[in-house]
């Protein structure tokens, strides 16, 4: 008996250890996620409406919207088969206008989904699940994967709406007011807002508020409803299905209007960007950064829509959100960061950096460290020749004065160009390192001409290549721009030395410059490994 207990005890300990190690492995193991497979669709709606009433008891239903639209179309039914109309607009909700309570909403779905499926089945039509098995619809496995892509109202699409016959064109006001409106607090009504038009997302945010719909409902009730109505009049209309707007394929097929006329919303042609928040202007009377003359009209042409810069509101960046000190409204992003953050597409520098990555520019710019600023960097925007200095003067200037000053400053900017072609050496013989190869004959002038031709028309380049020597500095870097830059060997020694400024050795300096630029510009010839294409092998 005693011996039995002894064995039992040890047995129990061993068993415990085994269980622990096994459960331990289980706990650490990767839980398999259901893999979405099969086709890609842009119309998958996960029906999880009941989550507003508490924790979901069942998995959300993956509902393929366009599949249902098509099926109903075949029966001669339209959107109203599922969506009710409220104030001439289709509700995005299914078979109801309001979410009353959990029981009602649940019953709405169950009765109508299964009811319709059953009806179709009785007519011998192909249809969805008709059984009462929950998992037929509430399945964790989604058979298709989503390729939903947000659609943006770009200039071209916007212009096509303005020009559309379906939208009243009588007056500008009526035309704009077809879509643009504002919420009147007093009358609790939507009223036209001439001169205050902005992007939908300025008011319609991700989450709905008491008075304002969320962006999803707002765009679907407005866009789809209108498209449906216009299509009903047999006129040329926009998409009414999910895929029509939200699949990448369909987006690629959207007709693009080139040379869209400039939008008219009383926006300025030129802006004098100053430190515009009242607090800073009141407390700091001098020593603020010099203003920047901003060519608003030119930048309108470079961007798809106003939101590219005016991402959250049309108002000036600095007045409320991106103040000098940073504000909660602007996510504490200070004015300096808002304008200069190198990794933000909305900041000046961030957007310019993106342009510099284009292959015509990358030859030089890929080799220049990102975010590096030289003495001239600040003054290329914050113009030294600006007569303004300090806040006191800015405060006393009227809006018109500022605009006039900005216009003058922009006009004063003249592309610097490059040195006279005759002054640029035609060929340079690189013979510093002649060893196993003959000297390389470098077609200096041809290269300068070819490279300059690629950027001569770029407004960005002409705005920032501020002296004749700037362009030369792509190769003749780190020394002041000059007609007679120093030889490479003045700075680059024989070998790399991590301690002395970590400059490449002379051989690498040449090769990195030539091959690096060719690679960045995606020039295929000569290949990086074709040594003899540049310098003949010494026999």
């Amino acid at each position, binding site marked *: 008996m*005693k*011996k039995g207990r002894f064995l039992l005890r040890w047995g129990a300990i061993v068993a415990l250890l085994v269980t622990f190690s096994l459960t331990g492995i289980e706990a650490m193991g990767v839980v398999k996620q259901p893999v979405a497979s099969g086709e890609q669709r842009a119309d998958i709606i996960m029906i999880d409406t009941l989550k507003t009433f508490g924790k979901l008891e069942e998995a959300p239903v993956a509902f393929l919207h366009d599949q249902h639209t098509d099926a109903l179309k075949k029966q001669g039914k339209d959107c109203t088969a599922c969506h009710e109309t409220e104030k001439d607009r289709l509700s995005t909700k299914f078979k109801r206008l309001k979410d009353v309570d959990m029981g009602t909403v649940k019953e709405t779905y169950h009765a109508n989904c299964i009811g319709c499926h059953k009806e179709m089945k009785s007519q011998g039509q192909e249809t969805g699940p008709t059984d009462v098995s929950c998992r037929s619809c509430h399945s964790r496995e989604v058979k298709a994967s989503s390729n939903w892509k947000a659609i943006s109202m770009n200039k071209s699409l916007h212009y096509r709406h303005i020009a559309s016959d379906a939208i009243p064109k009588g007056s500008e006001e009526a035309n704009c007011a077809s879509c643009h409106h504002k919420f009147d607090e007093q009358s609790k009504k939507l009223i036209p807002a001439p001169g205050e038009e902005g992007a939908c997302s300025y008011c319609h945010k991700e989450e709905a508020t008491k008075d304002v719909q969320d962006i999803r409902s707002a765009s679907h009730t407005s866009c789809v409803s209108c498209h449906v109505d216009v299509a009903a009049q047999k006129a040329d209309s926009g998409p009414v299905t999910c895929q029509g707007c939200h699949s990448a394929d369909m987006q690629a097929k959207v007709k693009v209007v080139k040379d869209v006329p400039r939008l008219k919303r009383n926006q300025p042609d030129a802006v004098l960007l100053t430190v515009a928040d009242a607090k800073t202007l009141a407390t700091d009377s001098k020593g603020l950064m010099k203003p920047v003359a901003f060519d608003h009209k030119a930048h309108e042409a470079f961007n798809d829509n106003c939101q590219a810069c005016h991402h959250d509101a049309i108002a000036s960046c600095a007045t409320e959100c991106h103040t000098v000190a940073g504000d909660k409204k602007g996510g504490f992003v200070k004015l300096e960061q808002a304008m200069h953050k190198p990794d933000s597409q909305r900041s000046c520098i961030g957007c310019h950096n993106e342009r510099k990555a284009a292959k015509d520019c990358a030859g030089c710019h890929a080799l220049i460290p990102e*975010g590096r600023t030289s003495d001239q960097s600040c003054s290329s925007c914050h113009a030294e020749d600006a007569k303004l200095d300090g806040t006191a003067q800015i405060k006393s200037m009227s809006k018109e004065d500022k605009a006039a000053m900005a216009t003058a400053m922009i006009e004063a900017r003249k592309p610097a160009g490059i040195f006279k072609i005759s002054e640029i050496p035609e060929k340079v013989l690189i013979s510093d390192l002649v060893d196993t190869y003959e000297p390389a004959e470098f077609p200096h002038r041809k290269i300068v001409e070819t490279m300059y031709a690629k950027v001569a028309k770029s407004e960005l380049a002409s705005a920032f290549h501020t002296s004749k020597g700037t362009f030369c500095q792509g190769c003749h870097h780190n020394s002041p721009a000059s007609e007679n830059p120093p030889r490479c060997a003045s700075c680059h020694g024989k070998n*790399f030395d991590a*301690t002395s400024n*970590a400059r490449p*050795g002379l*051989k690498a300096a040449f090769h990195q410059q030539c091959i690096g630029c060719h690679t960045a510009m995606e020039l295929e010839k000569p290949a990086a*490994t074709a040594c003899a294409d540049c310098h003949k092998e010494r026999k």
Partner: protein
Amino acid sequence: MNRRKFLGLVGATAAVAAAGTSAHAAGNTHFTGHPEANAVLFDATECIGCRKCEDACNKVNELPKPDKPFDDLTVLDTKRRTTEKIYTVVNKYENSKNPNLPVFRKNQCNHCQEPACASACFVKAFKKTPEGAVVYDESLCVGCRYCMIACPWSIPAYEYDEPLTPRVMKCTMCHPRILEGKLPGCVEICPKEALKFGKRDELIKFARNRIEAYPDRYLDHIYGENEMGGTNWLYISGVPFGELGLEEGLGVTSAPELTSGALAAVPVVTGLWPVLLTGLYAIHKTREKIEKKEKDDAVSAALTKAASEAEAKLSSELEKADVANKRKIEVEVKKAVEEALLPKDDDDAPEEEA
């Protein structure tokens, strides 16, 4: 052995084990490399796959001529590894950042700060030099090839076709040239300085500055700074190192550090386990002995008891039987006497019966 003795023994074991670990920890301080050690930094964004480094390596180390010349770049289409005749190979990989532009990586001995090959070698044929290179002494080698199994990057190769004096072959970081103040052959020839030679700590500083200056060009990681306790061949790249065929899951612990724990456990296991197990056996045996004795005693006691009980019962039974017999005799005697005293009238009975 009694309970007290056993507990004492267990306590002693624990103490020794604890002392053992602390001694091991103290003896294995974190080694951060020789202060003056050299290193090579490979920049995958600079390498163009020209194979000049392979060529230079071959010449400097006087290795046999390869089947295909070094300017034949078609060999890059196959993934190659280092062999006993080729200390370094350049391989081509797909570039996940830009599919039109393949990336290249040079492969060779990484010259670990605490080399796995050296820790696996029981004759100390591999040695880490203060200059940074891991060098091999063929006069000591016994040909066990543990080094080849130990190397996390599978670099050392063996001269299988040398029947009499086979050696383990691998990159030496051109240690003899370094001692002469020259650059390693591959570094010297590289046209784009994709290979940079310098003091390890300075190269790390350089690499950090470079990553900071070109955040889009490089991943924020220097491979080899900490991998396997750090190596003297370092890598920076624009694509994940795994895509360049560099194992990413090696961890930051050096091979000797990983194995020293297990090896330090050997004396504990060999010294203590026999004592412990013998102790357990002894306890078990004693318990069995006691149990047997108890059982024997009980059996004999039971037997004695049973015998005496049986005897007592017998005697009482006998007594009882005696009394009963006596009574029976008495009764019989009485009966006989009574019968004898009764008058004789037996004659009537047979008549009635008839």
